[in-house]
């Protein structure tokens, strides 16, 4: 490792060892999104109407609640990875970048948790009309 120019000091240090992981997870969650959102669209279009009572019955079914929960996980994971790249590309300041990625993590985990809890509540308890 050289001690002169900046490029001399970083040359040959190798990769950060985790770029491929991010890239692969982005693709894996993309496939998950593709399958589960296709399911959601067709499942919704097949419903006769969108009254609250019917939505409760629909969402409480295991064959709807489980893919819905999986979809939330896949979507929010994919979203977290995508917005991370957005922040890394356009926010040069280290402190700002750190803070925004912290907020992004809260948003992704909090959003997914709220969605999953809502589905679980309907599935387990139903909602009084």
């Amino acid at each position, binding site marked *: 490792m050289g001690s002169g*120019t*900046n490029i001399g000091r970083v040359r040959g240090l190798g990769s950060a060892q985790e770029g491929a992981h991010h890239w692969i997870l982005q693709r894996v969650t993309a496939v998950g999104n*593709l399958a589960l*959102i296709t399911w959601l669209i067709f499942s919704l279009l097949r419903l006769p109407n969108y009254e609250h009572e019917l939505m409760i019955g629909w969402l409480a079914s295991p064959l709807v609640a489980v893919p819905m929960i999986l979809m939330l996980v896949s979507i*929010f994971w994919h979203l977290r990875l995508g917005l991370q790249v957005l922040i890394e590309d356009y926010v*040069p300041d280290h402190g700002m970048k750190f803070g925004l990625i912290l907020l992004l993590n809260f948003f992704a985990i909090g959003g997914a948790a*709220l969605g999953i809890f809502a589905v679980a509540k309907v599935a387990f308890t139903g909602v009084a009309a």
Partner: protein
Amino acid sequence: MRVRACQNCEYFRILQLRAADLHRECVSQNDKKPARLFAWGFVFAKARTGLKRLRQGPGFRNRGQKLVKPTNRPLSPHLGIYKWGPHMLVSILHRATGDALAIAGAPLLIWWLYSISAGPETYETFTGIMTHPVGLFVLIGMTFALFEHTYSGLRHFVLDAGAGYELQQNRLWSSAVPVLALVSTAALWFFIYTKLIG
């Protein structure tokens, strides 16, 4: 917009965005050079390097004092200088629609699920807002973003596999993506319209 190279470190030429921090470090190191005592000396030095640069032609000397001609290196110019093509549009739309879905679409999805779980009144409020023209506009926009991002994502899978880079094929599929997205959005909302109203 022209890309200006740093006189000392070349980083700006290689990776404009990601290396901005390294470049800043280079600038601050440069600031630590002993201050020139006489302004005239400074002016003279600048004039001398200017004349030298004129004599040597385009290019600059890096820290190793090696002359770097601008034609030797790949440049990384900004958007403004490229000729627009469908591939460029689709690439930009992929990021824009993905971010729109992440920032607006996902919260809408959660709001919808929450309103179902919270009871009929909350659900009524949600459907009331979403069937208002403004709500519909947002929903239709989100539908287009979803289709655009999905089809563009499928295109990326093909590109990831190393296919679809031939000029004509690339042009064909990058033109097809936004067209298919518009057609799908129109078809879906036509279906919803005929189902709920017609």
